[in-house]
């Protein structure tokens, strides 16, 4: 084992770019009062980080920092994905931070006592950048401690992001709920790491794997507990059943771009970490892991679908949608094979863009987008926006030729190959429930009369983000093979 080397820092180029931008934003916070500057800087940093991640890969896989950090196709794939999600969420935040005009119907004057200054944009963007940094560390980690640190950095920033709209009581409540449950999950994760260390004497994945292989297949009770605790901690991060309870409240209370960030980047990072832990560190226990993951996936899909049926709040609906989609994404890991992991990678990639698109439309509609009834008659007022929403909803349902179909096809193929036919049937039957849930929105948009005045037009930044999401959703559906060269299991 070599000690850390200055050259190793080059491996962390994407993370360094994000951290430096975040620090610059914090230092200049007092000078940056207008969102566009902070947003532009963040988007630039995200794009630079994505390019740097891709560029680092050109030299092949490398490991650094004494075998704690790796740079391989798997990690860089997720880093590019996280950076893209960060860029899109930043673009989507541009309207959300715009000071809202007073309600024309009530004309309530602003009370100087209760009106607090809005959070400064620099801090908001710095938190987004730091959270993304943590997620990137989690994708690169080949050591349980680095994994824990990365995830904690991401989660701590997320707690604050959820509560950053300080004047909204629901936002504070959501942040506290998220924090309480999140700390519990972090404790579980840490406990799992401690048990794994106790049983194998190591925290890095390769050493854990070799400890397993030297011991033979008969598994140790402590190790089983460690696997269970680690799975529970990571299931919380991706909001899989039964660790999903925080998601609807947090998404509803948080501002919509933050909810979008939690539903996409955060989930991608959690799945990246879970994939590497399952396939590298605990590969020897594939049988146990497979049944644990199958249970998590199946129950997430069922619970997400059933709970979504009765939602009337769009963000809660999307929260349950993200729970069910976490279940679908986990299906790939159930088989425990590299093909399965690649299926999950494809799923996550396409899911991130279509979910960001759906959240983007919610953001574009402003206050009206948050409740399901706000969608009534949208197609008559804003045909373009309604068509985009229809596209994203069809994709989330998995109707071809959209990206969602490609995603569904690859994960179901992987579990059929693994011999879990019943799980495959369950997954597709629940997608019919999802069709009902999503198309209820389509029914409201296309088949009801408008009840509210048309929403105002949204900014160019939101427009750009929606266009990118729509483009990926369409291309991913028409050319399902376009991701194939990029998805490489760990």
């Amino acid at each position, binding site marked *: 084992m070599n000690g850390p080397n200055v050259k190793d820092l080059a491996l962390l180029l994407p993370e360094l770019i994000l951290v430096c931008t975040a620090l610059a934003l914090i230092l200049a916070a007092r000078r940056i009062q207008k969102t566009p500057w902070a947003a532009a800087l963040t988007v630039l940093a995200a794009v630079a980080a994505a390019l740097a991640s891709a560029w680092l890969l050109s030299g092949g896989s490398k490991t650094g920092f004494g075998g704690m950090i790796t740079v391989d196709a798997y990690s860089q794939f997720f880093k590019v994905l996280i950076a893209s999600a960060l860029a899109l969420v930043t673009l989507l935040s541009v309207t959300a931070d715009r000071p809202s005009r007073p309600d024309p119907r009530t004309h309530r004057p602003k009370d100087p006592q209760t009106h607090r200054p809005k959070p400064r944009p620099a801090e908001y963007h710095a938190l987004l950048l730091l959270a993304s940094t943590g997620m990137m560390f989690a994708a690169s980690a080949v050591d349980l401690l680095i994994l824990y640190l990365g995830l904690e950095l991401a989660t701590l920033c997320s707690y604050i992001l959820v509560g950053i709209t300080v004047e909204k009581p629901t936002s504070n409540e959501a942040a506290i709920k998220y924090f309480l449950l999140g700390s519990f999950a972090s404790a579980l994760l840490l406990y799992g790491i401690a048990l794994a260390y106790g049983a194998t004497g190591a925290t890095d994945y390769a050493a854990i794997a070799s400890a397993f292989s030297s011991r033979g297949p008969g598994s140790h009770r402590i190790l089983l507990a460690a696997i269970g605790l680690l799975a529970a901690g990571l299931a919380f991060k991706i909001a899989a059943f039964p660790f999903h309870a925080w998601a609807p409240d947090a998404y509803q209370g948080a501002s919509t771009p933050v909810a979008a960030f939690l539903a996409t980047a955060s989930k991608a990072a959690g799945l990246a970490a879970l994939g590497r832990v399952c396939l590298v560190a605990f590969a020897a226990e594939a049988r146990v892991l497979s049944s644990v993951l199958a249970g998590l996936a199946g129950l997430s899909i069922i619970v997400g679908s059933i709970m979504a049926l009765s939602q009337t709040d769009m963000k809660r609906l999307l929260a349950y949608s993200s729970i069910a989609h976490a279940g679908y994404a986990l299906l790939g890991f159930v088989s425990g094979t590299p093909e399965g992991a690649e299926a999950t990678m494809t799923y996550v990639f396409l899911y991130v863009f279509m979910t960001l698109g759906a959240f983007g439309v919610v953001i574009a509609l402003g206050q009206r987008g948050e409740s399901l009834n706000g969608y009534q008659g949208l197609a008559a007022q804003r045909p373009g926006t309604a068509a985009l929403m229809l596209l994203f909803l069809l994709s989330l349902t998995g109707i071809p030729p959209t990206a969602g179909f490609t995603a569904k096809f690859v994960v179901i193929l992987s579990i059929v190959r693994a011999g879990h036919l019943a799980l495959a049937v369950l997954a597709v039957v629940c997608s*019919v429930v999802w069709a009902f849930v999503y198309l209820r929105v389509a029914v409201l948009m296309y088949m009801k009369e408008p009840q509210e005045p048309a929403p105002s037009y949204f900014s160019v930044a939101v427009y750009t983000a929606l266009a990118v999401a729509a483009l990926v959703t369409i291309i991913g559906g028409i050319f399902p093979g376009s991701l194939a060269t990029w998805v490489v299991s760990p």
Partner: protein
Amino acid sequence: MAYPILTTTTFLPLVGAVAILLFRGERLARWIALGTSLATFAVSAPLYCHFDKTSSALQFVETANWIPTWNIAYEVGVDGISLPFIFLAAMLTVLCVSVSWTAVRTRVPEFYAALLVAETAMIGLFAAANLFLFFIFWELMVVPVFLLIGVWGGPARVHAAVKFLLFTLSGSVLMLVAMIALYSEFGTLNFRELAASTLQPTLQAWLFVAFLAAFAVKVPMFPVHTWLPDAHTEAPTAGSVILAGILLKMGAYGFLRVSLPILPDAVQLFRTPMLALSAVAIVYGAYVTLAQTDIKRLIAFSSVSHMGFVTLGIFTLNRSGVEGAVLQMINHGIISAALFLCVGMIYERTHTREIKDYGGVAKLAPAYSTFLALFCLAAAGFPGLNSFVGEFLIVGGAFKTQVWLGGMAIWGVALGTTYLIWFYYRVVMGEVNPGLEGLKLELNAREIATLAPLAFLAVCLGLYPDCVLSYLRETVGALPGVTP
């Protein structure tokens, strides 16, 4: 061949739909839709002229690399079974554009765009040479039809649209699993390659059931037909025409394209239950039709009975039955489309679908009554008109298989004649209903031009059925499991 005919035919309507959505003028949308659908019909013409009727092979094949990592290519081609449906889809879309010219007044550009997307899905489905493409077009079809019913339909349109969607998707997701199971077994989804490989009988049985779920809902077969009356009744005229003319044929086409060639052992295993369900659909559908008081519901339920003949013909598994089934699909596509067009045209003037509000239409609209008479007789299987030949072949095939099946089919034909003649009598004959006095019911030139091609086809196929049968003879003969 100077251009890729099938690809052009398939995607030209999609181009038209995009153009309509980009330009967004109401008048312009109508003209673009008419132009596109006529152009699509025109570019598909070489298919019918240059088709080699002596071969059962796939013709006009076009292949392109699509998803190399999955070993799935873009492959299209036609054989004798799929070709007539492409003709039917291209023709009916033109008529749908024409019949909606004044009937659709709200969100006109979106309406025509949805119609053209549906045309792409229909033609693409019949042209697909692998199961993956077939599935994509199968699912793509659902979205525009859902919107056509739900946005431009009657009072209970939302209920009908959602019911249609849930029924269809419940079936097709099981088809997705079956498709994936086939893919993971053989690593290919090409129809010919799948047909050439052999599968374990148990796996075949499971796959048959999964495909059956998708196909039976679309046909629709007896216990899962309940979406059809609602959807057909609430849909706008063009939607009903697309539903009755093409969408119902997709299920039966699926049996011929997937179940018979790829799962031959399972087809033998499930043959008797399928025949029994078909016989039940014929007789039950006919009795329910007799009881209807709403014109559109009546025609919708008659489709259940008529499609029962089609599935009966397919699962007789003899040449006469299968040829009759394909011919009958075309016939039903022509006639039910024509009947829905007739109903739509008169509904545009009277705004009622209750049979009791009609009567004596013959005195007010002689040309209309003549057309309706022709189509009712054709639907009832009157000799000299097209359905007669199809039903004759199917009943012949049924008698060869089991005598009681032939008996049931004859019973269905008799009931069919009864409900159609009685329907015609109540609407057209007798004294003029006071509610209709003063209405201008007679057809205008555009409407006559819409109905005339269908009337011509009904007579033409009745007198010279070989113009369709000659196309499908070789292909049906080459289907595995079909006895001469």
